[in-house]
């Protein structure tokens, strides 16, 4: 039998690469940039108008006609624009001596008429698509947006609250050290505070007091989630919920670029509604373009670096030594294919199910 191949999920972090990201509107709109244009994070790439309201105007009753006859008195046909107080429909009575009029209550577009009623689409919400990070437009996606390229560091995180944001990185703890209130001093005001492990509840209060731009840490208790909704800044977790230290490689990159501006982006959700990994981009200008970020298929095989995602070794990092040639029975009572992982910093190796790891690509 041929050896089976397993493709667990992967997560990327790299200190320097050429990074391209597609930025798309959810509905068609107007693209405002051209290929080759340099953009800032706040640059508008594209806009679209999404209709939000509908107004129904009864014309049959004011015109004193049966609903099925009302349409012949329309002055504004479907597809035309109408201003507030403009006449929508008109009927002359008493041998033309008097005119019954129905006026539009709003600015909008007449979209349909029937059954004695007129529908006006009123108001629209403007959707703005911004670049999200500084770079160069390398491709325009007609009607939808653009592909923007930059060079620098890329870190894919586990979870993030709030919307896209940016700020200067300020590392306030050592690696694997929890983020406590006392680590956040007034200099942190207006920066993205980086902690090497989990966030203590007191740190959230202190960060709010000092008006930080955001927090990046390894993990946080899930019970703190309701408190995040009351805070003015977002939180990014690189590892997961609970008490997990940040991966040393990720902490190293964030420390290396302390003082630089970082941009946190939320990729669009998949067709099943599951969100993608939030990404931290740290633009770094280079004279020669670095290699592109890691891409292509990677499967589980000896030598591949992985992070364990389930108990009892959740959050640990190691290297694949081998894949079992047959399924194993776990303590849980499940029978599945497993890989032997040599844990970093330890003598011991562990056998874990092949889909209980994330491949680390850096």
């Amino acid at each position: 039998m041929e050896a089976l191949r397993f493709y667990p999920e992967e997560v990327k972090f790299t200190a320097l690469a050429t990074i391209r990201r597609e930025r798309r509107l959810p509905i068609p709109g107007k693209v405002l940039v051209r290929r080759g244009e340099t953009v800032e994070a706040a640059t508008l790439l594209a806009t679209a108008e999404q209709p939000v309201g509908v107004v129904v105007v009864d014309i049959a009753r004011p015109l004193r006609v049966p609903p099925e006859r009302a349409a012949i008195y329309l002055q504004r046909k479907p597809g035309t624009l109408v201003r507030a107080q403009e006449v929508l429909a008109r009927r002359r009575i008493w041998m033309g001596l008097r005119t019954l009029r129905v006026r539009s209550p709003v600015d909008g577009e007449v979209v349909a008429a029937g059954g004695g009623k007129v529908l006006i689409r009123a108001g629209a919400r403007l959707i703005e698509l911004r670049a999200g990070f500084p770079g160069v437009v390398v491709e325009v996606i007609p009607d939808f947006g653009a592909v923007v390229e930059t060079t620098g560091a890329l870190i894919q995180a586990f979870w993030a609250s709030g919307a896209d944001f940016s700020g200067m990185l300020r590392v306030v703890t050592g690696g694997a050290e929890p983020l406590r209130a006392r680590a956040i001093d007034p200099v942190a005001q207006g920066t993205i505070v980086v902690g090497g492990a989990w966030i203590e509840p007191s740190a959230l209060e202190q960060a709010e007091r000092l008006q930080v731009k955001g927090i990046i840490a390894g993990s946080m208790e899930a019970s703190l989630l309701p408190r995040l909704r009351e805070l003015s800044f977002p939180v990014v977790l690189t590892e997961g919920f609970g008490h997990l230290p940040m991966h040393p490689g990720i902490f190293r990159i964030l420390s290396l670029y302390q003082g630089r501006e970082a941009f946190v982006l939320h990729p669009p959700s998949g067709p099943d509604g599951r969100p993608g990994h939030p990404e931290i981009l740290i633009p770094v200008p280079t004279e020669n373009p670095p290699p592109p970020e890691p891409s292509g298929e990677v499967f589980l095989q000896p030598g591949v670096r992985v992070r364990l995602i389930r108990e009892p070794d959740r959050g640990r990092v190691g290297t694949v030594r081998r894949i079992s040639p047959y399924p194993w029975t776990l303590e849980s009572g499940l029978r599945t294919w497993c890989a032997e992982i040599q844990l970093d910093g330890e003598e011991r190796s562990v056998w874990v199910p092949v889909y209980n790891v994330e491949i680390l690509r850096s």
Partner: protein
Amino acid sequence: MSVKSVVAIDIGSTQTRALLFARVEGRFRFVAAARAPTRLRAPHLDVAWGGVQALEQLSAISGRSLLDPQGNLIEPEFSNGMGVDACLLTFSAAPPIRVALAGLAPEWSLASLQRAAASTYAQIVEILSAAPLNGHRQTEERWLEALAAAEPDVVAIAGGVDGGATRPVQALLETVALAARLRPEADRPLILFAGNAALREEAVALAGRELPLRVLENIRPQLGQERIGPVVEALDARYVERAMASLPGASWLQRWARGEILPTARALSHVARYLSLEAPDRGTLVVDVGGNHTVIAAAYGGMLAQMVRSGSGIGQGILSLYQRRGYERVARWLPREIRPEALEVFVWTKAMHPLSIPQTMEEMWIELAFAREALAEAWEQLHGLWPELGRSVPMFEPILITGGVFADHVRPGAFALVILDALQPIGLTTLLWDPVGFTPALGALAALDPSLAVEAMGGRPWIPLATVLAPALDGPVAPDELLFTVEVHHRGSDGSESVYEIEARGGRLEVVPIPGLGETELRRFRMRRPVDLGWGPRRSPRRIRIAGGLLGLIIDGRGRPLSLAESPEARREQIQRWLWDVGAVGGGL
């Protein structure tokens, strides 16, 4: 051309399964299964990838080459045994379709539409009622605004028995047609009209050429008559259409598919119906707990009641399941104390990594606690929508267990207990287990070629797990109180005979191993309490032949509804004992 071999691809929200069926020694049957992750996350957003990977694994496992060097399915089967004659596709990976329901009265046409929507992957986003709904009358303006805000994929309209009221349904039709025209042409909802037949021409005229419309048989041609089938089929067809359009790579797999592409839940319903026809006096249940959907199909005499609960499962759906059910309900099934923070970490980890599986016993218990809640919720909703189910169907036999959460276990007692706790069957039933997820494929096969499906389902290809005898009690019983005794008579294949008496006690689970070979009968029931085993209080047949199974006979003396101890410590002891009784701890198969 007769079909000698079939591969079925079932694309779930977490995993894609490939299943091979072929004629082996003259019989068409299931041969092998393989699976791969379903990729729905950038940058690897491609459901075809999972299908191809699963087929590659299936080729490796079965020794039958299924793909050519370009990655295309070899179809039809070559004389050397490569490839297959047909490929079947089933889907549950796409999000549910957004459905607005419009009807004349909440208790008639709208109730029927709700049953139809519950039977498929649909999310009800709006309900428009011509009659007052919850004491409030809705205006046409309110209908329009609601439809404009809800942005449904489908609007299903019903109301009026044939020859009955027309005006209120006409108003609904007009409003829906107006609202549909508000949307850009490409996004207009499909209108399903299943109301008074007298309005069919009117519906066609209102839709004109601009609005997609399907005119269906009246969902309630008479007050006492309901026909939800055509609406369910139309919703299923829309779901598949949307899945094909929204799932990248689906069209690649579609090229290989022969016959109708089915939503997985529909395929499961075919199997439930088939099994119910084998024993028309009893109901049949098919239960499926997956990553993001929980399905219960209850069939009796070919009739079907089905609940498809989206946002419920032990993958991505665990997060919303937990939000609805809460800590207390999940934690009550655990044999050890767990802090809410630890449970939340579990939930988030599982939701973000739905492919991952429990390694420790503790995590397995948590996962199965969620499976209980997913099933219990769907079961409650099924009974809410079909209240007659509890009255007219005395017992369900068999109960077929499928879905990702029940796959690959070596301690099947653990999930047999999940079924007993969540569904609380009464009387005599058998539990059948589908350990690899081939049941949807059998349903899809039935749609392609019923005779092949009958051949593949003949002799029940599922693993017999247990025969369950669960009495209904007339009131509370003391722990360990004797309920009844029964003799188990076994005649081995070598002619040897054995008889042993079993005592059924209150609050206890008795598990009696039954040898796989030979014949086993239950005889001489002696009632000590007026328990009801499904034949009425204190009544029992003289003898019942039962099947063996991995676990044997389970006598569930815990009563219905199941009563858990009030105090957490006592409850955890109770759970520990039940887990021990069914062999859910310790060694496995």
